[in-house]
C-alpha cells in the first residue's frame, strides 16, 4: 500500500537481488548451451557463431554488468557485516556500481572490436 523506502542503500539492495535472480535464471541456459559441446558439437558451434550478433553482444555486456554488480554488491555486504563501516557504505555502493559498469564496458569494447 505504501511506497517502499527510498534511499541509496535500498537501490543497492534491489540491484543485488535483481541481478542475483537474473544470473540464476541465466545459468541453466548457459550450462545447457555449454553441454552441447558434448552432445551436439554442430549445435555448439552454431550457438557460438550466434554470439556474433550485435544484439547478443549487448546482452552479454548486460550479463557481465549483472555479474560484476552482484560481485561488488556482495563484497560490500560482507564488508559491512564483518566490519563497522557505516559511514562509507554509500560510497562503497556507488563505487560498486561504477566498477561494474567499467568492467562491462571493457568487455563490450572487446567484443565490439572483434
Amino acid at each position, binding site marked *: 500500500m505504501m511506497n*517502499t523506502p527510498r534511499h541509496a*542503500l535500498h537501490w543497492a539492495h534491489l540491484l543485488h537481488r535483481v541481478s542475483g535472480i537474473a544470473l540464476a535464471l541465466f545459468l541453466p541456459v548457459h550450462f545447457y548451451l555449454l553441454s552441447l559441446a558434448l552432445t551436439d558439437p554442430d549445435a555448439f558451434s552454431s550457438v557460438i557463431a550466434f554470439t556474433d550478433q550485435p544484439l547478443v553482444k549487448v546482452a552479454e555486456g548486460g550479463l557481465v554488468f549483472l555479474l560484476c554488480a552482484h560481485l561488488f554488491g556482495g563484497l560490500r555486504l560482507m564488508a559491512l557485516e564483518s566490519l563497522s563501516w557505516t559511514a562509507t557504505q554509500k560510497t562503497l555502493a556507488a563505487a560498486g556500481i561504477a566498477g561494474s559498469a567499467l568492467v562491462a564496458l571493457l568487455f563490450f569494447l572487446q567484443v565490439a572490436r572483434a
Partner: protein
Amino acid sequence: MSTPSEMRVTVARGDASNPSEMEFTVPVEANQTVLDVVTWIQQHADPTLSYRFACRVGMCGSCAMMVNGEPRWTCRTHVSRVLDGDRLVLAPLRNLPVIKDLVVDMNPFFDAWQRADAVHRPSRARADGVAAVNPESRPRIAADAAIECINCAVCYAACDTVAGNPDYLGPAALQRAWTLINDERHSDPAATLDAVTGTDGCLNCHSIGSCSHYCPVELRPLDAIAGLKRQVVRRALGKRLPCD
C-alpha cells in the same frame, strides 16, 4: 521557496477490511508539525478521526505515521520539510495491522521484543552492590549507542524484510538484544543471542539500512544487527561473546 497558504491533506481512513481516503484542506502555519495538522483536522474538520499521540516532544514514541510514503515521528516533523507542493499524504504505519484511521495495532512490534528475549536478567543480587561498569569499554560503548530507542516502530515500518516476512524480529527488537548482549550486568548473553539467531532472527537482515536511515533519534539498528551477525559467526568459530 514560496509556501502555500493552504495544504491539501489526504488521510487514510477505516481499517484493513474497509479502507478509504479523505481529503482535507488545512491552513499552513509557521513551525507547524505534521501532528499539528492531524490535530487541526480532528478539531476543526472531522472529530471522528482516530490517531495516537501523547508527549508531543519526541519522547513517547506513539505518534509515528507514514507521511508522504515515509515513516516519521509526526510530533517532531515540520510540515515545511515534508510538504510535496501543497500535498500531504498521511497513512498508518506500514507493516502493522490497522485498527482505525491512523492507529495501528502495535502488538506484533512488541511481541517481537519478547521473542528476541529482550529482557534484562540481572547477574547480581541486591547484596552484591553496584556493578562497576567502565564507560570506555567496547561493549559499553556499543550498548550506549543503542539505548535511547523510544519504541516508535518507525524502523519496523521502514523495514522491507519485515514487509516480506512478518515473522522477522525487526530492527528495534534486534537492537535491544544487541544492547543486552553488550551489557556486562546481563546474566545470560548466550541465551539472548540464541533467541535472535532462530529462523526469523538477525541473519535474515539484508542490510538495506532503512532502519538507520529513518530512525528519528538517529540510532543505527543496522550496525547493531551487523554486530549480532558477527557474534553468531564468532560463536560458530568457537569464540566467546563480548560479555560472557
